């Protein structure tokens, strides 16, 4: 098997450099550098276009109270929807990864993995249509029950929305949408669990669950953390499903089942952008810059966690 770390032979000084070689390595290096340039470019161009909003008088920002007041409810909506979606998605994803790796028949594992991946292939607009037409009506009755019986919990304060187009539905749809990416990363970690550990646990008489708890879960822990953060990044940036499902009005509120919901940054951009001009447009781009910064930090942290596991696991 080819070892990845020493794939091409070392360059020696005497080897003649043909023009073809120089051109080819130049193009390759250039392409690689271009990716870094693009990422930097995303930041630079967003800042350029957001700049006027940063320095505009507060009264000219939509809402009339300045940029921070405009963005804060959006940021709140973004964070609460993504975090709660993650609370649903992570346990489910870990359970699914366990099922595929340890419980399903070996021959079916690959196919089952594909099926979960298909969830990731469904375009977000279709999740939006599905969420508002199928899922939202289904939640109307449970939501009113929740507001009547559990109304003392701030999340279920009510009054329950009659259309069902609430933060609650958004959270469920977001959870479904981030499920595949979390499952994929966690499954990769479980597959790499040293089989000697698994076999040792089984040989000592542990049940399958005890083997998982003692061998697989400790090994996969940092992957679960990293995968959750990746999922968080996805949920933070999800646009169309949120824009279509959520009936937007009102500001910061923990109430998940009423018809007054804070929008998320991404959904707000999608809803407002086509009709916006001038400083309103710059404000939207400024909010996009905030979203970019948050997702960048979350993703970088996630990758750092996952990569660290790779270095220390001894599995590769």
């Amino acid at each position, binding site marked *: 098997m080819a070892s990845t770390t020493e794939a091409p032979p070392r360059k020696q000084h005497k080897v003649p450099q043909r023009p073809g070689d120089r051109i*080819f*390595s130049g*193009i390759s290096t250039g392409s*690689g550098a271009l990716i870094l340039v693009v990422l930097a470019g995303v930041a630079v161009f967003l800042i350029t276009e957001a700049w006027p909003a940063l320095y505009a008088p507060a009264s000219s920002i939509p809402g009339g109270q300045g940029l921070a007041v405009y963005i804060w409810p959006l940021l709140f909506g973004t964070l609460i929807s993504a975090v709660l979606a993650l609370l649903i998605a992570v346990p489910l994803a870990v*359970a699914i990864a366990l099922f595929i790796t340890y419980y399903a028949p070996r021959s079916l594992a690959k196919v089952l993995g594909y099926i979960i991946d298909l969830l990731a292939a469904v375009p977000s607009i279709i999740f939006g249509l599905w969420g508002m037409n199928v899922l939202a009506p289904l939640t109307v009755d449970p939501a009113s029950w929740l507001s009547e019986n559990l109304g003392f919990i701030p999340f279920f304060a009510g009054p329950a929305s009659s259309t069902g187009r609430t933060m609650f539905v958004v959270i469920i749809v977001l959870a479904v949408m981030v499920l595949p990416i979390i499952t994929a990363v966690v499954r990769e970690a479980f597959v790499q669990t040293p089989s000697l550990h698994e076999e040792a646990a089984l040989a000592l008489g542990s049940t399958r*669950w005890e083997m998982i708890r003692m061998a697989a879960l400790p090994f996969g822990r940092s992957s679960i953390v990293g995968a959750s953060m990746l999922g968080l990044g996805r949920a933070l940036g999800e646009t169309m499903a949120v824009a279509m499902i959520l009936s937007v009005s009102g500001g910061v509120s923990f109430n998940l089942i009423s018809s007054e919901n804070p929008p998320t940054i*991404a959904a707000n951009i999608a809803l407002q952008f*086509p009709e916006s001009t001038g400083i309103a447009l710059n404000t939207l781009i400024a909010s996009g810059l905030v979203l970019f910064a948050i997702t960048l930090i979350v993703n970088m942290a996630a990758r750092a966690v996952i990569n660290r596991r790779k270095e220390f696991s001894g599995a590769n």
Partner: protein
Amino acid sequence: MSTPTTTQNQDPDLDRPLGGVPLTAGQLPRGAAPGTLAAVAVAGVLLWLIAGWNIAAVAVLGAIAYTVIIYAWSRTVEGPRKATDRFVTAVVTGAFLLALLPLISVIVTVVTNGLARFDAEFFTYSMSGVEGEGGGIYHAIMGTLIITGLATLISVPIGMFTAIYLVEYGRGKLAKAITFFVDVMTGIPSIVAGLFAYALFVVIFGPGVRMGFAGAVALSVLMIPTVVRSTEEMLKLVPNELREASYALAVPKWRTISKVVLPTALAGIATGVTLAIARVIGETAPLLVTAGLADAMNMNPFDGRMTTLSVFSYYEYQSPGLFAEAAFDRAWGAALVLIIIVMLLNLVARLISKLFAPKTR
């Protein structure tokens, strides 16, 4: 600890060898789990058909009932450890089935609603001058193909050469940085990619710019990292012996890569590119802010608004106008076409990797 329901009492040595501590443990009969499941299923079907309960509620109750029964039964017969194991098995399987529900529901919903407008007119007409019923998505299909095609043309060379750099040339800090930031880039929200393309084109063309090419640039930002990752994985799989054999014949490095390494990995790369296309072809948000919406056919990606399937579906649903029913039908029809395209691309990708994979032996 365990009741001797299934253990055999004829062998006292194993059952109570040392002051009453048994060496054998009770075990549920062979068909316990499937039997319980069947019993719960029968009860559920009866409740559904005769008592008229909601099928979803019956399914959830049935799953819970099965878990409780098997746990309690196993705990009394087999003890807490085995019982926990059976409990986890039930929960984990249930989680998988639960995840299938939205997938099935989504597909069923889109197919049933979308078939209303699956006629010839739908595929051959644009929305130019259409009010009320009729009209089609020809312009949106063409727009989707043009924009996605352009995005592929931009992304595949950049992505492939980056992967070549990472596998064949890259050493040191630059390669590490690229690997890391390619991973980070896969997490960029699609709307941010759209805003970037818009901001870039505003700098060049002035405010309010909308064109298909801007959409293609936005999609490339989303597509490049996927192409890099999959190509990189495939190039790493090419055995080193092939490269060495080529060098031994005094073939220059660039010809080795283009004539030996790339052809060997071609099937895998094609799979990766197809999956990358499937990922971006359904994108809505970045196209909403860059390519916009047009009713008429527009084949020129450098001039004016250009409709894609997803954006078309979104607008038909969001602002249906006076003839809402017809617009909703068109929205669902476009969604169905989109999901068919995406599923086909996924299928093609798997087929490519299966049929054209290099023989390892």
